[in-house]
């Protein structure tokens, strides 16, 4: 027979060290705590306020270029390194932690338009308006990097001159190929002086190219004829192309969902597409008031960062219509390039004011080592806030963002314009025979057609 007894062994209830937590017993009977919901709501409110208080996203600026930063590349193999190039042909490698230039890559005569690094982080590829593609050997990161104050210059490992100016370059994931965009799409090998493959569809120049990180042979380009095209390198032919109403400045593939890509459009919106079904966007991300210049996905695939001509950087959820966050400073000018760091913790932006800026991906995140209890507390705050985010008080605080005056005004104007358009359409529909006026949904409205 089993006899149940109350027992309280001493060993279980004494702490081994004074730092250990005391064993505390709770009775979780909900009837004992009638106010738990109220308590949690209050906590959510407090958490929302605290988040606002601690929201200090700007970490630092990297100053050194003498012209606007045109493009950036992150080293997929090394977190602290970031490459940037400017309109005067200057390429720099930055050490993010110390925010200083590690070395420079001189050589380009005109603006550098494209920059990319091979997956192993050894080869840097740059191209620009001087019709050259240059390959550089990336110096191995050493401990002395940060301490060396004198900037060292690196000679290009290879220099290939080609027929036309280049607009963009991107490296294949885990491969030897890279693609340049110019008058046409060209695929290069590291060791060949001329492209191994070239694609052309139409006569307009290609302005951006991006390889699919999941499917290394698939890449997407956007051209100045307002088209977005998907190519497959194995097939020597394009797969799909859509024509939109406005030009697409940049494309990013979702690294966790290889079929999905998001296009940064000139009309200030981003469009997420499914690569298999391009005639309709999966999601329209609206918030920028001017052209979106660059886009980069977080390695987690859950959000992406965009830089815009309206002098702001925004972070969008991958499936959300509006941005989660907007970053801006007084001194930041037109943003030409943005990057999400490889550990999804930081965001980098390069702008016309010759600076690179380092931001936290989560504005109120605590940096540095976080003790487990702290971590738990943060998680709890986040969870509670997330739970009550729909209630008006919490929502107001969580959603509030201070906007620069020009953006605020522009948003107002855009809203007015849209309202009047809608009104007009409503009236038109009301005064015409039913069925004659068909409104396309927003997700199709900006897409003209899919080219066969």
């Amino acid at each position, binding site marked *: 027979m089993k006899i149940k007894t109350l027992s309280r062994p001493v060993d279980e209830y004494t702490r081994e060290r004074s730092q250990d937590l005391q064993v505390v017993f*709770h009775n*979780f*009977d*909900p*009837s004992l*705590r009638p106010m*738990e*919901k109220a*308590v*949690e*709501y209050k*906590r959510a409110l407090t958490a929302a306020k605290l988040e606002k208080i601690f929201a200090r996203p700007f970490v630092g600026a990297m100053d050194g270029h003498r012209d606007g930063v045109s493009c950036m590349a992150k080293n*997929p*193999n090394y*977190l602290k390194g970031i490459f940037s190039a400017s309109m005067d042909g200057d390429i720099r490698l930055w050490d993010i932690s110390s925010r200083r230039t590690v070395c420079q890559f001189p050589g380009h005569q005109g603006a550098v338009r494209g920059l990319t690094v091979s997956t192993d982080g050894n080869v840097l590829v740059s191209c620009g308006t001087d019709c050259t593609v240059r390959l550089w050997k990336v110096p191995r990161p050493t401990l002395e990097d940060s301490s060396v104050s004198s900037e060292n210059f690196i000679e290009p490992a290879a220099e290939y001159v080609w027929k036309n100016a280049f607009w963009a370059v991107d490296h294949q*994931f885990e491969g030897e190929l890279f693609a340049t965009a110019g008058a046409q799409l060209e695929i290069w090998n590291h060791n060949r002086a001329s492209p191994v493959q070239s694609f052309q569809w139409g006569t307009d120049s290609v302005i951006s190219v991006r390889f699919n*990180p*999941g*499917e290394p042979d*698939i890449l997407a380009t956007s051209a100045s004829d307002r088209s977005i095209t*998907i190519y*497959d390198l194995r*097939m020597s*032919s*394009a*797969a*799909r192309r859509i024509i939109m109403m406005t030009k697409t400045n940049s494309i990013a593939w979702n*690294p*966790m*969902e*290889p*079929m*999905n890509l998001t296009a940064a459009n000139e009309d200030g919106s981003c469009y997420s597409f499914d*690569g*298999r079904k391009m005639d309709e966007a999966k999601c329209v991300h609206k918030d920028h008031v001017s052209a979106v210049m660059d886009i980069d996905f977080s*390695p*987690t*695939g*859950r959000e992406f960062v965009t830089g815009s001509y309206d002098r702001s950087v925004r972070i969008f959820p991958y499936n959300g219509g509006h941005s989660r966050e907007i970053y801006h400073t007084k001194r930041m000018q037109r943003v030409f390039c943005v990057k999400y760091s*490889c*550990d*999804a*913790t930081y965001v980098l932006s390069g702008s016309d004011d010759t600076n690179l800026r380092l931001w936290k991906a989560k504005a109120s995140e605590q*940096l540095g080592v976080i003790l487990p209890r702290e971590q*738990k507390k943060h*998680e*709890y705050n*986040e*969870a*509670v806030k997330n*739970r*009550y985010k*729909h*209630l*008006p*008080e919490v929502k107001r605080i969580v959603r509030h963002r201070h906007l620069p005056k020009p953006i605020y005004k522009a948003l107002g104007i855009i809203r007015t314009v849209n309202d009047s358009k809608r009104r007009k359409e409503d009236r038109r529909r009301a005064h015409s025979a039913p069925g004659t006026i068909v409104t396309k949904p927003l997700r199709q409205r900006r897409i003209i057609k899919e080219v*066969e």
Partner: protein
Amino acid sequence: MGEKRRSTSKTLGKNKRRKGPHLPNSILKTIANEKRPLNSDEEDDEIDSDDAIVDLYEYEEGVPEEESRKNNRYDPVVNYNYELPEDFEDENVESDDDDEGGNSDNEEGEGDDVVRHTRMLQAVTGMPSAAFDGESKRKPVLFTEAYPESEFNPTRDVLEGKGLLTIDELMAPIEGKPGFNELEKRISRMQKDAQAVVHAPLPKPERERLERKAVKGLVDKEFNKWVHMVKRNREAPTVYFNQNVSLGYSTVGAIASEFQPRTDFEKKMASVLNDNELGEAHDEDGAKLLELNEVSVEDQIKYRDHIAKMRSLLFRHELKSKRIKKIKSKTYHRLKGKDLKKSAMGALMDPEMAKEEAMKQEARRVEERMTLKHKNTGKWAKRMISRGLNVKYDGTRAAISEQLQINATLSRKMNSTNDGSSSDESDDEEELNDGSDQDTPSKLIAKAREKTLKTVEDDEVPNSGLLSLPFMARAMKKKNEEAIEGGKRALEEYEEWENSGGEENPKKTAVVSGRRVFGATAKVEAPKESRKDSDNFYDNSDSDNDTEGIENNDLGAVRDTASPARNTGAITETEFDDDVENPASKTTFDVALFASGSWKKMKGCQNAETKKKLKKHVPYSKGQDKKESRDDESEDSESEAEEMVDGILTSASKETYEIPSQAELIQRAFAGDDVVDEFEKEKQEVLNQEVPEPEKPVLVPGWGQWTNIQKKRGLPSWMVREHEDAKKKRTLDLKTRKDARLRHVIISEKVDKKVEKLHTTTLPFPYTSKEVFEHSMRMPIGPEFNPATIVGSLNRPEVVKRAGVIIKPLKFEEANPNEKVDDEHPRSNQKQNPKKGGKTGKGQSKGKSKQKTKA
């Protein structure tokens, strides 16, 4: 390919049959023979044979049924009255396959017929079968051409361009000549190649479009293979990106396996450890270990030297001790002894010394306990503590704690050093003392009880003398009874004392006071009770008189339930009579009156008889004087009792008692309160509060009153209109209320503004129903409200990543149908699926609470 070829050959045959030039039969036959080796397939053969048969006639006429069955011996008439056999199966049951089989059988049958026919002819005529071959089916051929066809007189088909020459036709003349076979082979090869017709190339855009279409399909396929992974990722409540971080070695085993011997010793060890022979020996029985355990000469020498050294050391030590023992100086030995004593070793070694030490320790302990010298009772320590300096300065604190430490060590009981007997004794004594201290009162109580019991028990009555007289005896008896009563009471008290004494410390004064308090309250209460009693006592008559008639009419059961109410009613009445200004009592009086009034009402409506009786009784009660009633109290009560008894008796004897219906009983039980009326009033109040009546239009004093015209006109029309509008609106509001048609319900439509902030205006996006959304908020997620084991999973964010860990893009994995849900991170599905989670949570909580209540 084979299929195609067959079809082509068929078409060829057809062409030949229909449009070909009418060649002589012999040529056709030869051609057919030539074709045979080309197509070696069986089916082709069949077809060829068909062709050969079909080739020979142009026009085929349907053969009459009778003719085809010429040799049928049965009279066809039988078929008309054909009866279905018993095992006949319906057509529908048969499958297509069966049909086909049947068809083929039929064909074979036909073929058989033909063969049989020819065989018969052959037998009859004795001519070869070839002569009859085809004869039966040959029909006269119609020739439309005037002249036989030749190259100068081609057929119309040829002229029209239809008559194409085939290669076979061209080939026919040169058959059998040298080189024919080679040529034929080449031609057949050419024919094979010619199957794929080379078209003119498509225009480039068209071609590219086709190409793209193909690519599109391939790319889609490529993308599709990721779907399961993407789906899994998206549906996961949490995605982990911090998992694949290699932190070097994970286990001790892994570290050990990587170990490389570097120094000589390590190498030696490794060589021994990794020696297979040794391992085997160890595994087997160990006998071989002895063999392997060879000792080298050097080792032996080393060992011997070591032993020798130790011996010499021992010898020297002996010498030394001998020398010391020889020393006669007393001071030297005394000092040495002291040293020994001081050392704990000495104490341990010598039992006498240890005893002495213990004695000393005990003395010190006693001293310490008496003086409390080290308990920081000194002036300095007190000062330090009072000023809080011991907290402030480490030194002070250390000093004070040191003192306490000394105190603790000194006052500690030395069990080990004490003699067993003495300690036992002292323990016993102590225990005894403690016991006596504690148990004195209880013992006393016990004694007292014993005594009282004795007194109670021996209540012998003397049988002689004065005390034996009857009245004395009676008095004695009474006294005795009293005494016994008192004794019993005392006993009870003792018991009580004992019980309380067991729990409480008798030394505490609080207990005494507590008892005293209890006594006081008892005192206070007692008079109250008595007064109440008296009140009841006095007014019983009154109330009885009031309600007597009713009670008489009513039955015993009701009477019992009604009596307490009656009593209270009576009390309040008397109090009212005495003009007691107590609001509480007044209210109760009101209630009582109300109750009685309703009672009367109820009665009135119930039956007339009671009413009459009531009327009879009421004046009597009213006319009754109070004093009188007091005088008659005992009588009344007696009479009442009698009546009651009578009533019961009578009811029992007469058996006129009828069990009232349930509704009646309920009506009687709740006769006092008119719930419906009250509720209606309440509802009206609520309505007025929530939809207030519009105020009557009033002119502001001084405005519009100074002319007669205004007075005559009355209120301005707009005011009246407004008022009416407001009234209309109110009625409308009342009508549209949810409880407008529900008579027994009040649904409050008051909106609490403070609560409004806790509601969303619309249902938030991912949720599709209100219930699910509310469920998602139902259970708290905090660590205070949940066990520590699930708090982590409740609060886990959607993306778990670590700063400084590079996240690689998705790598392709094949879909595993047997894959389980990630067990490593168990997580309640509350977050992912609000509905589900909420429900389960609810269930759990319910179960829990139930358990609690049960326990």
